[in-house]
């Protein structure tokens, strides 16, 4: 233990010449450096704020445009039903009451009433009488009175109300609006109907159900395969050329453009199952191939995050490899795997391009009945509608986007919640 006094250098309590000089110089530069630091911080903040603003802009833009899409133009008038048709209330309780009403001439009665009430024909949507018929079947007693109805307007009138379409109709529309006979009303059928020709009568349910069926197939294929591959690669795979190939292909598949998967689905799946063109089964299989690598990668990260000490602990009391993996590693990695899966599924839910390649851009007027019946999916429906001629589809497209975004935000929200909830620091 040496404790000598060193006399060669500075005297105690003083600073060397360099130290003094340095301190003086530093003070001079300090303000500038501080300012640079603040600037840099601001730039970062601006970058984040820009992204946030874009997101807000996009969401607000879509929602505000989409609100109109949940509405439809309706015309209001009265239908004098008493004595208009040769049909009694009794008939409406028997089978096929709709056919009975049609036979009795309800379509014409409704149309005439519309013409009379609105002052010109062609303002009521085709098939609007069916809504009247439904009302009547629910309450046959209405047959004897005058029914005040609010029925969908025809497409040209609806367009005219927005100031689009046929020029001649626009003054008519303005007049009807001022009289309170033409209104925009919430269209509750939008969520329960399927695709149609007229924007006044389209709905999103068919595509939504198609998306759900497709996602189901994707999930049951991609999840087990993804998790098992992740387990293999993290826990079992020896380091050799084969497993390296597996790793490389998984990492690459995660970044292969989605449209290429569409080409694969077209060339392979549709060649094997030509019967199932446009079906959620094929769509789900194609998307599963896309989603699987995402699950594998997030799964591997989650598995990697399980501390080796847990594995050691289990091994050291004589647990076998499979027991270690299934008793300890997998349960601990599960929240992470689920998070990755949800994010992968959300991506698949929004995927369009590959499905265009495998026939899911079909017009399907009824909700799909199963995994093998032709169907559309939400994003493709959006794409199809965005290409429609009728301007009434513009709002409908935004409304469909809102529906899709709601689902995606929900899924992302769950994923984020899961991650925060189960985030583990070991």
């Amino acid at each position: 233990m040496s404790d000598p006094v060193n006399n060669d250098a500075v005297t105690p309590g003083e600073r060397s010449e360099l130290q003094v000089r340095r301190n003086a110089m530093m003070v001079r530069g300090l303000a500038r450096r501080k300012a640079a630091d603040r600037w840099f911080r601001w730039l970062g903040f601006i970058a984040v704020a820009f992204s946030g603003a874009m997101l807000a802009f996009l969401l607000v833009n879509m929602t505000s445009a989409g609100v109109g899409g949940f509405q439809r133009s309706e015309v209001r008038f009265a239908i004098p039903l008493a004595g208009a048709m040769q049909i009694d209330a009794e008939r409406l309780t028997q089978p096929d009451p709709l056919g009975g009403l049609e036979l009795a001439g309800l379509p014409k009665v409704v149309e005439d009433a519309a013409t009379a009430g609105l002052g010109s024909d062609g303002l009521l949507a085709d098939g609007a009488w069916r809504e009247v018929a439904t009302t009547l079947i629910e309450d046959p007693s209405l047959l004897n009175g005058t029914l005040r109805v609010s029925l969908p307007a025809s497409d040209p009138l609806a367009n005219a109300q927005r100031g689009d379409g046929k020029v001649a109709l626009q003054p008519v529309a303005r007049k009807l609006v001022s009289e309170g006979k033409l209104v925009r009303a919430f269209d509750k059928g939008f969520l329960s109907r399927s695709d149609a020709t007229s924007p006044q009568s389209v709905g999103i349910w068919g595509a939504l159900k198609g998306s759900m069926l497709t996602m189901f197939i994707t999930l049951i294929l991609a999840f087990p395969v993804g998790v098992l591959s992740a387990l293999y690669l993290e826990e079992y795979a020896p380091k050799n050329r084969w497993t390296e190939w597996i790793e490389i292909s998984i990492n690459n598949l995660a970044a292969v453009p989605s449209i290429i998967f569409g080409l694969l689905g077209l060339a392979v799946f549709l060649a094997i199952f030509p019967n199932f063109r446009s079906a959620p089964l094929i769509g789900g299989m194609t998307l599963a191939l896309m989603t699987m690598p995402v699950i594998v990668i997030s799964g591997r990260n989650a598995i990697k995050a399980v501390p080796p000490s847990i594995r050691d602990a289990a091994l050291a009391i004589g647990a076998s490899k499979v027991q270690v993996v299934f008793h300890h590693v997998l349960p601990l990695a599960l929240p992470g795997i689920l998070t990755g899966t949800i994010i992968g599924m959300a991506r698949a839910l929004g995927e369009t391009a590959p499905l265009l390649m495998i026939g899911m851009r079909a017009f399907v007027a009824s909700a799909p009945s199963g995994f093998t019946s032709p169907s559309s999916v939400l994003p493709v429906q959006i794409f199809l509608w965005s290409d429609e001629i009728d301007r009434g589809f513009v709002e409908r497209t935004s409304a469909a986007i809102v529906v899709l975004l709601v689902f995606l935000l929900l899924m992302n929200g769950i994923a984020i919640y899961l991650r925060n909830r189960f985030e583990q620091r070991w």
Partner: protein
Amino acid sequence: MNAEAIHTEVKAETTPYFDAPLKMSAKNVSVYYGDKRAIDDVSIDIPQRYVTAFIGPSGCGKSTFLRSLNRMNDTIANARVEGEITLDGDDIYRSGMDVVQLRARVGMVFQKPNPFPKSIYENIAYGPRIHGITGSKAELDEIVEQSLRRAGLWDEVKDRLADSGTALSGGQQQRLCIARAIAVDPEVILMDEPCSALDPIATARIEELIDDLRSRYAIVIVTHSMQQAARVSQRTAFFHLGKVVEYGKTSDIFTNPREERTKDYITGRYG
């Protein structure tokens, strides 16, 4: 240091052999990581019912050698063991040896306490369950209680067996890990710096516990604290650069080392 309760011993010139019955024995063991030799031709006998300590500077191969005793090295991709290690005369590296069973017989406790993130009860019950030691709930309860008692943890946790094992303090966690190891009734317990993450009080408890346990098991402990080796062990092996420089009675090693390097190390010339 109750190093005195030792039987008479035969002293060999270079490798010390003891009269105590041998539990494990390593002959000319070398361990490689890839091309790198981490253990170089080590021969050591582990006697029954003794605590054997491995000391030596960091990186000298203590952990490597310890892990080769229950084949935990198998989990490291490029690790390779040469030579012979026997447990009750049976070569543990022979083909056909069931590693799972071996590890049930040669338990291990690690440097950092690593309880499973499960309940205390499940931590202990896990081993007996996977080894099918018992099927009945009552018997399992019995095993859990016994193991926790032996690890000196029963009184502290008996009212909260359903709590997570990770919610215990560091020292308690380490005792839980010891309890977990003894729940499968092993024959040898290996401990790799079991106290280095613990505070002095917890360390003292574990050391006491080790002293208790040695009445039933052969215990091998790696430690970087010479004081600890002196306190708990009856036999000490001094490792240096992958070789065993000296191996013998703990009292001899600390008071009267045969090798210069041992002496330098003991007196703090390096490390």
